[in-house]
């Protein structure tokens, strides 16, 4: 079990090596990628900034909660920091379990909780040259 921040590109094939286990019949993964638009604005690139110590401890807490709530064997998550291009993997979650239902449920739980709780911030850069910290507008909230 580990939640990891990384400034280097996430390579799922490398990450998967640690999850090989003949006792597990199911492996569910989620890949969050950089999308080319948000709220109708054309996105050119983005950057993630994290509060390292608390992001990793809170991420590990979420994985531990998933292991406690669902019948799963392993749960891991990696999240990027730094500058990302369109299509890059921003976050990657993998869960192994004896059976698929628990693996799907746990994977969904982890990505939802990571987005809501882990101190990581996203700045989007738009094709018109402007940029914005997501969810930090003082007028209307964006996400």
């Amino acid at each position: 079990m580990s939640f990891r921040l990384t400034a280097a590109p996430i390579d799922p094939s490398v990450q998967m090596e640690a999850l090989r286990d003949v006792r597990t019949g199911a492996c569910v993964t989620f890949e969050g990628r950089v999308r080319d638009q948000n709220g109708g604005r054309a996105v050119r690139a983005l950057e993630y900034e994290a509060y390292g110590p608390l992001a990793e401890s809170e991420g590990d807490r979420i994985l531990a909660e998933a292991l406690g709530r669902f019948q799963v064997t392993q749960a891991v998550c990696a999240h990027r920091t730094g500058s990302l291009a369109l299509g890059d993997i921003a976050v990657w979650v993998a869960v192994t379990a004896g059976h698929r239902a628990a693996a799907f449920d746990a994977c969904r739980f982890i990505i939802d909780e990571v987005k809501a709780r882990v101190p990581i911030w996203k700045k989007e850069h738009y094709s018109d040259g402007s940029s914005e910290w997501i969810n930090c507008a003082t007028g209307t909230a964006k996400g």
Partner: protein
Amino acid sequence: MKTVRVRYFAILREQRGLEEEKVATMASTAAELYEELRILHGFTLSAGRLRVAVNDEFGSWGAAVRDGDALVFLPPVAGG
């Protein structure tokens, strides 16, 4: 008077113009300290939009600020 270390991230880092500073303060709680800094530096986010971390763990706005504490005011998160 006590001295605390404050680290800034994301929008607060940009609005403050630095990543970290030592702050001498009379504030007795994290809420009072943020209000001091918000007025001083013109932070756009009210405390109600933020969480606070003390010494690398989530803290509470009403907890006493002690000399030597490391505080972080956390803007709304947006991972994933």
